[in-house]
């Protein structure tokens, strides 16, 4: 293809995105678009499956059968989200095994929030309420993203995430209205998960190098800071209903901007966790790698069995 032809294609491509056309797997796309999407979608998929771990921890200890069943269902949903997202990424020409390899070798990232420990039952409430809540804000924006398979996966996922958030909030509500020990447990969980949840929206806009390009491709529709603000404005009244205190002495309603002002995020902590030195980075990766390595003989067996069966079929056909 001549340079001019490529330029033409690129112009047509950008025009389609501008018109809100969906880009589909077989369509021509710039290499950078493909690579950026593989990176973001696989990262998102990894977050779903690493995210199964902190909550998975509490399945065996859930305080009632009703909660146990609901938690199992939630963690299972996250696994399902992982599946849709890996499939969406595969349409861009990367295999699931390659993506797992990138995760296990540390080449691919996942959401840092899952590197914080889930220490008490109240963390199941806080994670649902805050972490799924923050995820929804990020993901609703992606339902209109330009890449068709990703946008469609997001629509499906968002429905389940809002159910998760309600479930988490309901756990918090029960604790906040329960015995003093339960209320303390809820406050403690909020204290530990509040700031990491704010960090889920990523660095400040002026330190977020990909924002302009991502906005153009509708991989982002609002900036990190806008989304963070939206999350805070939506969550503070919910904490008030619970009778819990957001652990930020600088949090204050700002009449002029019709939103909350809030304190400085600890960006050193943010980068520390992103770079692999959070409280649970090593444990999470070890759990994933162990599952993968211990499962190798099972996957090999399934493959060998499938081969034998298709061989048999071929023979019978002849």
């Amino acid at each position, binding site marked *: 293809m001549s340079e001019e032809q490529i330029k033409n294609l690129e112009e047509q491509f950008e025009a389609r995105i501008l018109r809100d056309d969906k880009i589909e797997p077989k369509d021509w796309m710039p290499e950078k678009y493909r690579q950026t999407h593989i990176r973001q979608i696989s990262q998102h998929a990894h977050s779903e*499956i690493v995210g*199964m*771990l902190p909550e*998975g921890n509490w*399945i*065996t*200890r*859930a*305080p*009632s*059968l*009703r*909660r*146990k*069943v609901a938690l*199992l*269902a939630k*963690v*299972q949903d996250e*696994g*399902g989200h*992982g*599946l849709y997202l*890996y499939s969406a990424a595969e349409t861009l020409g990367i295999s699931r095994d390659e993506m797992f390899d990138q995760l296990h070798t540390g080449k691919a990232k996942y959401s840092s929030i899952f590197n914080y420990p889930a220490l008490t*039952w109240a963390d199941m409430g806080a994670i649902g309420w805050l972490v799924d809540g923050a995820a929804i804000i990020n993901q609703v924006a992606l339902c209109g993203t330009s890449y068709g398979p990703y946008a469609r996966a997001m629509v499906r996922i968002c429905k389940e995430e809002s159910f998760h958030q309600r479930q988490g909030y309901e*756990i918090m509500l*029960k*604790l906040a209205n*329960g*015995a003093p*020990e*339960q209320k303390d447990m809820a406050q403690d969980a909020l204290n530990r998960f509040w700031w990491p949840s704010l960090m889920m929206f990523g660095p400040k806009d002026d330190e977020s190098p990909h924002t302009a390009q991502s906005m153009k491709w509708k991989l982002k529709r609002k900036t990190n800071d806008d989304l963070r603000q939206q999350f805070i404005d939506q969550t503070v009244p919910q904490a008030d209903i619970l009778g819990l205190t957001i652990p930020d002495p600088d949090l204050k309603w700002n009449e002029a901007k019709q939103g909350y002002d809030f304190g400085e995020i600890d960006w050193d902590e943010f980068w520390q966790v992103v770079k692999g030195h959070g409280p649970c980075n090593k444990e999470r990766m070890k*759990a994933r790698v*162990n*599952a*993968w390595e*211990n*499962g*190798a*003989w*099972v*996957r*090999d*067996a*399934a*493959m*060998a*069995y499938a081969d*034998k069966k298709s061989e048999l079929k071929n023979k019978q056909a002849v």
Partner: protein
Amino acid sequence: MKNENLYNYILGIADNNLILGQRLGELCGHGPTLETDIACTNISLDLLGQVRSFYQYAAKIAGDGRKEDDIAMLRKERDYLNVLLVEQPNTDFGYTIARQFLFDVYHFLMLTELEKSQDLTLSAIATKSLKEVSYHKRFSSDWIKRLGDGTSESHDRIQMAINDLWTYTDELFHQTEADKVMVAEGIGVDVTKLKDDYYNQVGNILEEATLEIPERKYFQKGGKQGIHTEHLGYLLAELQYMQRAYPNMEW
């Protein structure tokens, strides 16, 4: 308790679900593939969903103010009536599948009979459970075949798991005192009558999976009388942790 036999009979069924569901719950997020992970979680969900119906009914029969969670989580080790098979640990995926398979075939046969119970509540729970359990049985049977007839490593591993767990199969067909009374009243299932069908079905699948049917003269028993393997205590410690640490609270 007015109807202690019925109460114990229900626990004899439900405790199997609870303990196996709990075991499978330990695996969530750690499976060999995302698909098997989701499937095992799903089986756990089904079993625990069923157990809630059983315990709610048992609580009603007991009529002493206890609720489903009290029955599930606040009994002592010796009061759990599950068979030894279901409390065995998740040694590896082979053991998980072998345990599941050896239980599913029994579970399906038992529920098929329970559906005919004179007790309408039990019959209704059985009907609802059967749909789910027929899926479990298909899943575990398929994996027995895959592992048995997959690679030589998988063949050896699943054969070892089947051999080890075989010793717990005979107990499935032992009758308790509560069983006998409930069978006489047309409520309970006569498990002794399921035995031949069970070993036939299991044998056929094992054969198809190129696996050997273990030859055993000696079997383990005791679960139905509350005499368990050492594994159960640890499982209960996790299961009961919150209820014990924070008594009398709503969650």
